């Protein structure tokens, strides 16, 4: 049903897909051009940066596909759609997120897969590294999903929180597109302990690329993506429930 709704606007669907691909590609081409004047970014080569870029992009794109629609929670609240969903016998979060299957997100996934694929050609693969890679992608998507949902919960309390939320998720993604080595240690600590975006790609990528941690964080952090992702999802269920219990509906 959702797929059909999305495909109804066939022309716009393809335009969105192509546009998404081009915009995403430009983003990466920017980094690529940069590497014509510099040899390394914080000690990381182009293919390593590409690996980081692709990994965070895949995580974000999957999260966007699963829960991206939560961005419109505020609108659903204002229009009263949320009231309707709340009297249906299906978990609310599932309804909020699944009103439409966002096929257009596929273009981002495709692009990031190509970039990661190319960067992976240079990686010396071992079974352990493959395992960490799987954990990284799953955990990364989970972390982004959690952040999307938790930040959307602000909208249960106040009407305007979307821009604020977007700044975190997309801004976070922009930061993790680059090797964290170029940022001050405080930023890395914040991205480890506060908003754990460093687990989306940075730590596991250090292991997969066989690099030493420039900040000297414990090595077991590099295996933690999946655990952090699961913990974040767990936390999210509480935040979501808190939000729903503070939902005020509309006056009419």
């Amino acid at each position: 049903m959702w797929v059909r709704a999305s495909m109804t606007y066939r022309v716009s669907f393809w335009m969105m897909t192509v546009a998404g691909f081009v915009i995403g590609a430009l983003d990466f081409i920017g980094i690529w051009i940069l590497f014509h004047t510099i040899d390394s970014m914080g000690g990381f080569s182009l293919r390593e940066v590409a690996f980081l870029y692709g990994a965070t992009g895949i995580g974000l794109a999957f999260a966007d596909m699963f829960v991206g629609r939560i961005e419109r929670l505020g609108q659903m609240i204002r229009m009263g759609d949320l009231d309707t969903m709340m009297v249906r016998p299906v978990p609310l979060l599932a309804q909020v997120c699944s009103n439409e299957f966002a096929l257009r997100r596929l273009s981002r996934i495709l692009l990031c897969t190509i970039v990661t694929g190319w960067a992976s050609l240079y990686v010396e693969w071992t079974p352990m590294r493959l395992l960490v890679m799987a954990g990284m992608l799953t955990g990364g998507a989970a972390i982004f999903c959690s952040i999307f949902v938790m930040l959307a919960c602000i909208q249960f309390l106040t009407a305007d929180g979307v821009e604020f939320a977007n700044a975190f998720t997309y801004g976070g993604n922009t930061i993790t597109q680059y090797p964290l080595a170029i940022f001050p240690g405080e930023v890395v600590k914040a991205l480890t302990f506060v908003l754990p975006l460093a687990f989306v790609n940075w730590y596991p990528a250090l292991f997969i690329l066989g690099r030493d941690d420039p900040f000297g964080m414990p090595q077991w952090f590099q295996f933690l993506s999946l655990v952090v992702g699961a913990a974040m999802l767990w936390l999210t269920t509480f935040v979501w429930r808190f939000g729903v219990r503070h939902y005020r509906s509309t006056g009419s």
Partner: protein
Amino acid sequence: MSLIEVRELGRTFTVRKKAGRLRRTSHDVEAVRDLSFSIDAGEMVGYIGPNGAGKSTTIKMLTGILVPSSGSISVAGLDPSRRRTELARRIGVVFGQRTTLWWDLPLRDSFDLLQKIYRTDPARHRENLDEFLELLDLHDLLDTPVRQLSLGQRMRGDIVAALLHDPEILYLDEPTIGLDVISKGRLREFLRALNERRGTTLLLTTHDLQDIEALCDRVIVIDHGTAVFDVSLAGLHQRGGSRRTLVVDLVDEAPPIAIDGAEVVRVEGPRQWLAFPTEASAAPIVAAVAAAYDVADLSLREPDIEDVIRTIYAGAGRMSP
């Protein structure tokens, strides 16, 4: 225990207002306070009160959409806000102000989708759908997208949608708002039949006293968030002290008409409004007026809900428990 039990229910909204450039003040609005009532299975209850009385807020708490600030609710033995998803199978909700259908889908697809969402037995779904479509005369509109339906058509669609999963309780928040006389009549007939045949419990809010008179055995009047009266329909008129009005058009302007058993409540040129108790007969009053004055025209007005509520609120509201 009753099907619906509400005990000392309260709900407060904190409203923030801008005061000056940066300062914000907040104050509490008590939408519902100290509200108690219980409803048995199979009852048809009218829930009325002026704008802003707290009717919609109550319904939202009964359905689990809003969490109460105080007090307790039990619907079919469940706490609605904690067991919302579970309760959803057992209740149907119609919001007169908006649709629960999918704007872009034809009615048929909306109904199919609901069958999947509620996992209603397909045979049972067909049976219900056929019956409701027949009763509400919706067969010809099945392939029309919801956004193209008129208000009345959409409302009928919404009611079918709320009933396809055989709910025990149906909440209707202003179901007749904006409907024409004939649609209202059909809808009332449908709801009465529903209650008779299936024993569905009905709780409806409305501003149209005729809805109440046609449907409800019992009326709960709410004002400023609390139940002022909880009585049978006849009791409402009595306790509200509601009065009928005789509108008299005199040939010439005259001082207020003085007649036993009726009181002039308004004068506008040659037109005068005489109020008298609902139980009294209009005949002797009409006769007395006609005998004493030159009358050009007469008309009789039944009390309407606004009057009843107004009188109840102005007079008895404060004395109630």
